[in-house]
Each structure stands twice: as structure tokens, then as C-alpha cells.
């Protein structure tokens, strides 16, 4: 086998393209928030809301991380991907 060809073929398979990275950022952040909620469920006050005040119910750090990931995916990543594909 031609070693130059094999090297080229391998790099093509392993290299992650720019659209792939952009499309992965939001879901990765949202997944990190879900993992955080599973590891520390007591940080999600909505799971046990009885007797909690307004701010305790509003400020849910793991859910804020998920929210940022989702908003980024929908508002930023989606139109950016369209532009990247148009440019490519």
C-alpha cells in the first residue's frame, strides 16, 4: 500500500470539520448541564420545590447551562452552519 495515500486517507477520516465543531458546541454544553444535574440533583431545586422561595426556584445552575447550550444551538450555531456550508 502507498504510505502517502494511507496517511492522507486516515487524516481525512479523523479530521473534524469546522461545521462539525460548531454543531457540537451547543449539544456538548447542554449535555454537560444534564450530567451536572444527574451528579448533583440537589442543585436542581425544581425537583423538590416545596418550601422554596422565588430565587431558589429560578436559579438552577445545571438548567442554566442546558439553557445556554440550547439557545446557542438555535440562535447562533444554526445560522452559522448555514453560512459555513454556503462558504464551503
Amino acid at each position: 500500500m502507498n504510505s502517502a495515500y494511507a496517511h492522507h486517507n486516515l487524516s481525512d477520516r479523523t479530521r473534524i470539520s469546522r461545521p462539525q465543531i460548531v454543531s457540537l458546541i451547543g449539544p456538548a454544553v447542554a449535555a454537560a448541564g444534564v450530567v451536572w444535574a444527574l451528579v448533583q440533583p440537589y442543585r436542581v431545586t425544581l425537583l423538590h420545590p416545596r418550601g422554596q422561595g422565588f430565587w431558589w426556584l429560578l436559579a438552577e445552575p445545571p438548567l442554566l447551562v442546558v439553557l445556554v447550550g440550547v439557545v446557542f444551538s438555535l440562535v447562533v450555531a444554526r445560522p452559522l452552519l448555514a453560512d459555513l456550508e454556503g462558504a464551503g
Partner: protein
Amino acid sequence: MTPRAEFVHWFFAAGILFVGLCLLAEAVAGREVWERRPWRRYLWPGTAFAMGVLLWPVMAFYTNSAIHMYAHGSWAEALMLAGGAELGLVHGRLRSPYWRLAWPLAFLVTGIAFLVHEQNPWFFARSAFLHHTLGWTFVVAATVPLALVWRPRSTALRASFALVVVLVSVQLFADRDVAPVFGHLSPLAGLPHR
């Protein structure tokens, strides 16, 4: 009715995380593609400027000491200056690339304010530990936006800048008003809560 300090830290952490993700996407996609839609040019500088504005009520409502007031006030000014300079640059009103020196300046001011206004040692409580780590993160990482003034097209520097911002948000999300850090909590810090 005023939210606890940790709630405010988490809300700001969410905003900072959003800015970090935008910076990362811009670094990956490249500035030409990022600026293809006009609204996107203003997205992260505008968010940074808005967070600077929102730091003023934080300064007003969380004045438990003069040094806290000075710290929050200096962050508000530094963030508004850096965000405003970036807005002026992307809009074309400002032309000199040296306006980007506002970012390393903001990082230095923020870092020094974090270090100076934390009166307790590292392992007093988690909030003290995070004030120290945040302060040193900002002071050391000020070299990244400083290098970007002379190498604005460097993908590695832009990605590093984004990752520093994401790291700051992670530290803010980890903040608690009274909680142990690596098993250490001073009895003077108060009773930990959930």
C-alpha cells in the same frame, strides 16, 4: 427579595458562558463567515456591554463593604469599556486596533479587583478559593487578549480567549455563598446550606 450573591454569580456565569461559546464559534468558523450576518457582529460585544451595565445594580444592591462596591464598580466600568470598544470596532466607528487593548485592561482590572477585595485566605471557604482562582485566572490570562491586539487573526489565540472566558463561567457556576472547598471550611464562614 434581593437574591443571594451566589444566584447573581450563576446568572452572570450563564451570560459569560454564552459569550465564551460565541467567541469559540467565531474562532472556529473564522471572522469572515462570522461577520456574514450583521447582527452576529454585535452579539458577543453587545452581551459583554450589557453585562457591564447590569453590574451597576449589583454594585448598588450588594454593597456589604466599601471594597465590594469598588470591586463591582470597577468590573462594571471595565466590562462596559471593553464591550463598548469592541462594538465601536465592529461597527466601524473606531478604527485603531489598539482599542482592543481595552480587553487586557479589563482582565487586569478584574483580576486585581478579585484578588484585592477577597480578604480571606484560599481555604477559608469555596467563595474565597474561587475569588483567588478567578483573580489569578484573569491576571495571567490577560496575556491572551494582549497578544490578540497584534495577532487578531490567530485561530489559536482566539480559541484560547474563548476557553478562558468559558473557564471563568465554570468557576462562577461553582461558587456558593458558604460551602467547603476540598473539605476545608472555616467555622467563621457560617453554616453551609444546600
